[in-house]
């Protein structure tokens, strides 16, 4: 699996994931948002060119964003916030863990018993490494051989594939529809504005 993933041993794969891939995956959100500095963006793109695992991670993030954007928007009612605060104020206080250090819940206002205490320092130190180990394992398990020519792919189509399929399906009717709408825009008899 390691050879299939990165063409290298497990140790080298782990090192790459820990140092290079970890750095890249942490930036993928900002990369998609377009908020990375130019230097950092180039570094991420250079890494993506050579790392299939990170490219898959990027694609997964993109798909998630598209799925979220497809969700219908719901309008909040006018008294939503007031109702939320009232409900929170009526909730019973949670049991606080016995911790010698100050926790956020002690500092927070009494109406926020839902805040969790921070993890112990030992847990905080090892949690990122544990998460990386999990990600590495997941990537190794998730890695699949590219499909051979003509054989069906069992993955979900990417956002790009979904877009081009939709474009392919919409084009025939869209051309005629565009003509009909354009001809019915009486305010555009000159035909030079709305078609651009």
């Amino acid at each position, binding site marked *: 699996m390691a050879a299939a993933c990165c063409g290298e041993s497990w140790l080298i794969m782990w090192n790459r994931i820990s140092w290079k891939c970890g750095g890249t995956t942490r930036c993928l959100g900002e990369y998609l948002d377009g908020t990375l500095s130019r230097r950092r963006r180039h570094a991420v793109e250079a890494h993506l060119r050579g790392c299939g695992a990170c490219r898959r991670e990027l694609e997964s993030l993109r798909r998630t964003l598209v799925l979220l954007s*497809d969700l219908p928007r719901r309008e909040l009612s006018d008294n939503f916030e007031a109702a939320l605060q009232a409900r929170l104020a009526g909730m019973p206080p949670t049991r606080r863990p016995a911790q010698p250090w100050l926790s956020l819940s002690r500092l927070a206002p009494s109406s926020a018993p839902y805040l969790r205490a921070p993890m112990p320092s030992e847990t905080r130190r090892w949690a990122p490494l544990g998460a990386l180990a999990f990600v590495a394992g997941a990537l190794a398990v998730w890695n699949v051989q590219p499909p051979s020519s003509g054989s069906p792919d069992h993955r979900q189509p990417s956002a790009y594939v979904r877009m*081009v399929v939709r474009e392919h399906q919409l084009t025939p009717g869209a051309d005629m529809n565009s*003509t009909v709408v354009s001809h019915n*825009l009486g*305010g555009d008899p000159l035909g030079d*504005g709305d078609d651009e």
Partner: protein
Amino acid sequence: MIRPSLIATALLLLPALSLSAQDARDVMIRSLAQESRVSYAGYQTTVVTEGGKVRRAAQIVKRRAPDKLRIEYLAPQRLKGELVVDDGTRLRRSIPALRVVEEGPSRLHRSLERHQNRIRDLREGKRTVTLIGEGSLLNRPVTIVQLSPSKPDRPTRTLWLDHATGVALRVEEKSPGGRTSVTSFARITFDPVLGDAEFRLDLPSGFTVVPAHMGRPISLQRAQQIARGQWGGLPMPSLVPAGFVLTSAHQLSFHEHPVLALRYTRGRDDLSLFISDSAGEPFTAPVQPRVNVYQRPLGRVLITLVGTPSTAQLAQIAASIAIPSQPGSPQLPVVSRGSAH
């Protein structure tokens, strides 16, 4: 020597010619000014002729002044049941066959916003309007005017404008590439009672809202130009299934990256070739009935084929694609070869 009688005739005709040009502009300006004040409902047909192929549509059109429009398609079968509603804020197109509602900003609103600019251009003589003549359509007197395009690649439009309301009862358009389209009312009623519900398109259950159709038709030359700048050339297949003909090119974008689409058709069968930057692992699978997908990276370029041919046929087509080695060399017409579908 020019005979004096000819000179006299020309002098007499000159004001008449100027007057007719002025009349044409006045008619056009009046039509633009009245356009947002007239409501109507009617049965309309559209005929598009391109490359020897004729396509027809029939639709019910309702317009409520100042800025509401509804188009309900009755034909052809492919469009039947589709509904377009522009409520002055947004334009929605319901496509039941795909369970999709396309949504975008109101085109009517955008068009009305430009009225003053258009009227000014006409008054200043920046647009050429020719008076073709007077006539009758649907037993209503009409004035026929022709508008010359503002740019060489834009179409020439001829309008049959109703005397009483300024509404275009018939529109003929001729593009330099040979495409012609004619939209004409077969029946029309002015000032009908049109309720708010007519111009509201709610999202049906199970439908998805998608951005309005992104692909903008462009010429093949323009597609080649864009592809040269992006990828060094336009990848085109040298082998497509027999009968498929390249019919159009489109420009779109994905996450701000340019995407080109070439469209091939053969009767009711469609094949689209998308060209974009390479990214991700190639994907190959049937995604829906009559819609198969095959992707192939080609250096910096990703080729995506979508259409009715099987994935194996799409793979063959993809294998025949190469980026031309010499940028600027003219593209050969696509020759339909290969196994029959």
